[in-house]
């Protein structure tokens, strides 16, 4: 068993998350993956935006940056480009990443800059007590969707892949081993990697939608998450709310800061081409 306590700022506990919240499980997966990947705490930066999940960096003993709403990837891009030798991890939520930060998300994917992004997707704005997010499924209730949500949700992994991310995976708080493996793998890669971690919010999403306790919501993940191969075998009319977990995409493409370094090297080596 790794000593995960060395990654936690114990003096900042207890955390602010509600009973039954899945975010502690995802945060635990992030630090177990960091441990497994062997990252140096001094050389690792964890960046977040605003929201429940974005409070995680405050509990973690690294260089930590809690930025403005939606902007984690913008700050992280500055960090990675300024010091490419640092490991940069972004922890964010579905509202932070997919709504207010959507533009930064697609452009970080497009650049393929070496940042590992973990989205704690709890399908709701929890910090502000339950408004619908871009990841709230259609027809679900939220404090701002009292008659049922008519918005359609993103497929974040499809979005990341289409925008140019070179590692894309999805898991849930029930499938923690898979989640740790995915984040570990992402941390070892060069380009932009994206992991969507489904995380239950029994307080502001589950209760209003009668989804039961945190544990019951995790059982729902167990019963509805399937691999891509299994998903293909289910007739479309029987898929219901089933969704795909696992590694969704991986490709090797040039990483942004390495490409920039090539320009610097070329200019310093040959004196440029004025």
């Amino acid at each position, binding site marked *: 068993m790794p000593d995960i306590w060395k990654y936690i700022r114990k003096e900042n506990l207890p955390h602010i998350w509600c009973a039954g919240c899945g975010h502690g499980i995802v945060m635990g997966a992030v630090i177990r993956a960091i441990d497994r990947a062997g990252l140096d705490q*001094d050389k690792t930066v964890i960046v977040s935006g605003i929201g429940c999940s974005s409070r995680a960096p405050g509990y973690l003993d690294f260089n930590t940056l809690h930025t403005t709403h939606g902007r984690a990837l913008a700050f992280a891009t500055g960090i990675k480009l300024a010091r490419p030798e640092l490991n940069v991890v972004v922890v964010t939520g579905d509202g932070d990443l997919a709504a207010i930060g959507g533009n930064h998300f697609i452009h970080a994917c497009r650049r393929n800059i070496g940042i590992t992004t973990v989205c704690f997707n709890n399908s709701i704005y929890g910090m502000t007590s339950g408004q619908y997010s871009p990841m709230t499924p259609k027809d679900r209730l939220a404090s701002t969707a009292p008659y049922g949500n008519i918005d359609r949700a993103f497929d974040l992994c499809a979005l990341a892949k289409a925008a140019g991310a070179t590692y894309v995976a999805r898991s849930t708080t029930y499938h923690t081993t898979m989640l740790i493996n995915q984040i570990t793998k992402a941390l070892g890669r060069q380009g932009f990697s994206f992991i969507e971690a489904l995380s239950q919010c029994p307080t502001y999403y589950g209760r209003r939608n009668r989804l039961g306790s945190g544990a019951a919501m995790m059982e729902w993940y167990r019963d509805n998450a399937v691999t891509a191969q299994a998903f293909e075998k289910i007739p479309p009319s029987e898929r219901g709310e089933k969704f795909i977990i696992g590694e969704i995409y991986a490709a090797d493409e040039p990483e942004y800061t390495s490409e920039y370094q090539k320009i610097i090297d070329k200019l310093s080596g040959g004196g440029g081409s004025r």
Partner: protein
Amino acid sequence: MSDVRLLQGNEACVEGALAAGLRFFAGYPITPSTEIAELLSERLPRVGGKFIQMEDEIASMGAVCGASLCGLKAMTATSGPGFSLKQENLGYAAYCEIPCVVVNVQRVGPSTGMPTSPASGDMQQARWGSHGDRPAISFMPSSVRETFDLTVMSFNVSEQLRTPVVFLLDEVVGHMRESVTLPQPGSVKVVNRKKPAVPPDKYLPFAGEEDLVPPMASFGDGYRYHVTGLTHNERGFPTQDPKVATRMMFRLIEKVSRVRKQITLVDYHHVEDADVIVFAYGSMARPSLRAVRNARELGIRAGMIRPATIWPFPAEEVREAARNARAIICPEMNMGQMALEVERAVGPAVPVLRLPKVGGELHTPAEILDAIKGA
């Protein structure tokens, strides 16, 4: 050997930034500031620095903060609409004490306004543009040569005080070309932020020293600290303690106000015996000075006061200069934004006459001379 060059204000800004140690620029194209980004995309990688064109102005400001936290001197440049978008993370930089320089080459607003025409409509926005209280420092040059010097000053003050500096240009100065002699490389005084002198376990990233400025460790240097835009304590972690919140805000404001004299730059022209004083800044100081000289030729005792430091506003200097004046005239390319400050400085004893010009043109000397004659 003198090195005389024909430079644009925007180019002088680039030269000043590089002389001050700029190593990171993030920006988004916008007229009339774009030359700054274009030039830096060419120059920065030549000195091992980094340039990135971000997806918007908000992201540019975020990237600048991130790079500065890694120890690089960082800047962004924008104009009107882009400056509005900078405000969110400009407030963040002020609250989290992240040094950086934000250049705003002003054009006619509000909204898209007149993208290629000059204005000075963002003067109060530079002070109050983001929500909440924050310290604000701004400089504004009237010539190309001064653009170089004040860019260096913007970086130096930003580093000294761990606070963002908004460097204001207007489109006239940004695009005007003048012959300038730049200082030799290495002869420019460069200030770098204080680094912690204590080991990581003793480091308090948001505790001011005697000068009220906390030393700043760079990410990656072994000081693992937390930065948040939430109200934070001296360790950098969120707090709800009213005493801590109050102490922090007072420190942020006071670290700037206590060096007010050091960072205040004001030019005086013929004010000693002046009956009428023209208060002008940026490109407006140029026709204003001509008008003052013309007035003197006509036997009118006119003078001019020109602040290069806009924020903190040099109220004492203006009050002192205007002590014996009959009137102060404020030609501004806005509806009278700095006239408000002048009024506040001089009180009701001296009438402050506004001379707004908001159609995208600079005042002519004749217009200002007429105002002097009528004062």
